[in-house]
Structure formats: structure tokens, C-alpha cells
């Protein structure tokens, strides 16, 4: 058993190095889950679990993390039956949109009214 734990630890440490990617995760599960994310974020769950998390790359002093703007509407009927309407912008488009209140309101209206339109 010890050698399997050691193997898991080695694989985790090698592959879970710091990334240059922004990662946003939404997860629903039923069962047993053991995991390790970047920067040593560990998890153990048994039964039903729902997670929403983001992994943001490290920045040096004076740098900004990626700007992000998101508008979402989700209707969940079951674990694998969900209706989603979402808009996500990152980087320059997000910064530009965030300064335009009218554009953001327009986006919100479109996203939240989806499902009622034809």
C-alpha cells in the first residue's frame, strides 16, 4: 500500500506544478473523491459534493491577475440535465466591458431573459 501512496505523491508533485493557465471549475459529484490541485489545494469528500473554484496563476509584483467578467444563468434539473446561459470575458475584453455599464446591463438582460425568448 505504501508504494501506491508514494507513487500517487510523486505523480501529483510532478504534474501539479504551477501553471500559466487560468482555470475555472464547476463540479458536482456523488461518490468518493480524493484530489490535489495546484498550490497544494487538497480535497477529500464522500457522498454528494459541489465545488466551484478557480486557479489563478501567480503574478510578480506590479502585475495584475487576469481581469474576468462573467454573467451566468443556470437551471439545474438533475446532475447531468442542466440548461446554461453564460458569458465570460477575460483580459482586455473584460476590462473594456467592465467600464461600459450599458454594455454590461445589455449582457445581463440577454442572459437572464434567455429561455423566455424565441
Amino acid at each position, binding site marked *: 500500500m505504501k508504494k501506491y501512496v508514494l507513487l500517487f505523491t510523486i505523480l501529483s508533485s510532478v504534474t501539479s506544478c504551477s501553471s500559466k493557465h487560468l482555470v475555472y471549475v464547476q463540479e*458536482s*459529484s456523488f*461518490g468518493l473523491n*480524493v484530489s490535489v490541485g495546484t498550490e497544494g489545494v487538497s480535497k477529500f469528500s464522500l457522498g454528494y459534493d459541489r465545488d466551484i473554484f478557480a486557479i489563478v496563476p501567480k503574478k510578480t509584483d506590479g502585475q495584475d491577475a487576469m481581469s474576468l467578467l462573467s454573467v451566468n444563468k443556470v437551471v439545474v434539473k438533475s446532475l447531468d440535465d442542466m440548461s446554461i446561459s453564460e*458569458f465570460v*470575458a477575460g*483580459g482586455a*475584453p473584460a476590462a473594456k466591458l467592465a467600464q461600459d455599464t450599458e454594455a454590461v446591463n445589455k449582457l445581463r438582460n440577454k442572459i437572464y431573459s434567455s429561455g*423566455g425568448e424565441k
Partner: protein
Amino acid sequence: MNIKNYILLLSAILSSGCSINNKGFPLLYKEEIVEPSKNNLSKQVKFTSFGIHIDTRSGFIINFGYIKRKYIYPLVTSNDSDCSNILDSAHHKKIPSDADRTPIKIVTNQAGLSGEFSPTFSGVFIGYRTRNVFISEATNSFTFYQSNFTQLGEQTCALVTKSEEKT
């Protein structure tokens, strides 16, 4: 258990179904390019697999059981294009041949046992789960829009501007 038994066990498992990097036996594996009914500015690939599925393209992932996964690849643009425009325009359809090789979104439904070792995530799971992963290089700009409300029809837009291509 001696080596012969291990080989027999492995053969039994492999003969029940196996796919590697989204390639496998047709009866137990299916891959298709998805085309949304309405607006689409992305490339979407969906696959379904039963048995063993191994993926080595981004780390090492192994699944025993059922897995359904959809990859959404963005259209790479040279300027800061914005998906918000697609909300007002009807019938945008373009499946990019020059889509980015890195998916911007991965939707997974799976049941069974899985082990996953990737640059950003490592773990072991037993049970049923659904997972939506949104991923982007930190230096890139992007906009993403998706709606699958049935009354509206499915719409998808994924546009990425790579940092070195900005003007």
C-alpha cells in the same frame, strides 16, 4: 497473483472495451463534431466511451466505466473580438479549421473509477460526477458565450486573442 494471472486479468479488461486519447473500438466509443442548431463560432467535439479510457494529452487520465466529454475549441482572432455581438446577430456559423489546439471549455459526465494527473489537477474518484472546466492561458484575452436553453436554440461563441498576435 502471478504474472500470468495479471495478463489474463488485463486481457479480460481490455477486451471489454478500451479507448486511448479519444480513439477506440466503434462499439464502445463514439466521437463526433457537434454543430449547435443556431449560432456557432467554435469547434466542438464530443465523445462517449465505455470500458477503459486513457488520455495522455494533458497529463495522464485513466477512467474505468462510462465517460462523456465535450471539448469546445475557440476561434483564434488577431484582434480583441467580442462574443457579446453574437447575442444580437442571428445565424453566425463558423466552425474554425484553424481552431486553437487548446480547448477553452471541457464538459465531462462520468461514472465509475478515474485517476487524473494533469498540470493543474490530480486526483482519484469513484462514483458519478459532472464537471465543467474553463481554461485559458493567463496571457490571452478571450470572450465566451454559450446558451443551451431549448427555447432559444443552442448558441456558442469562443474567441481567443493570443498575446503575441495583438496589434
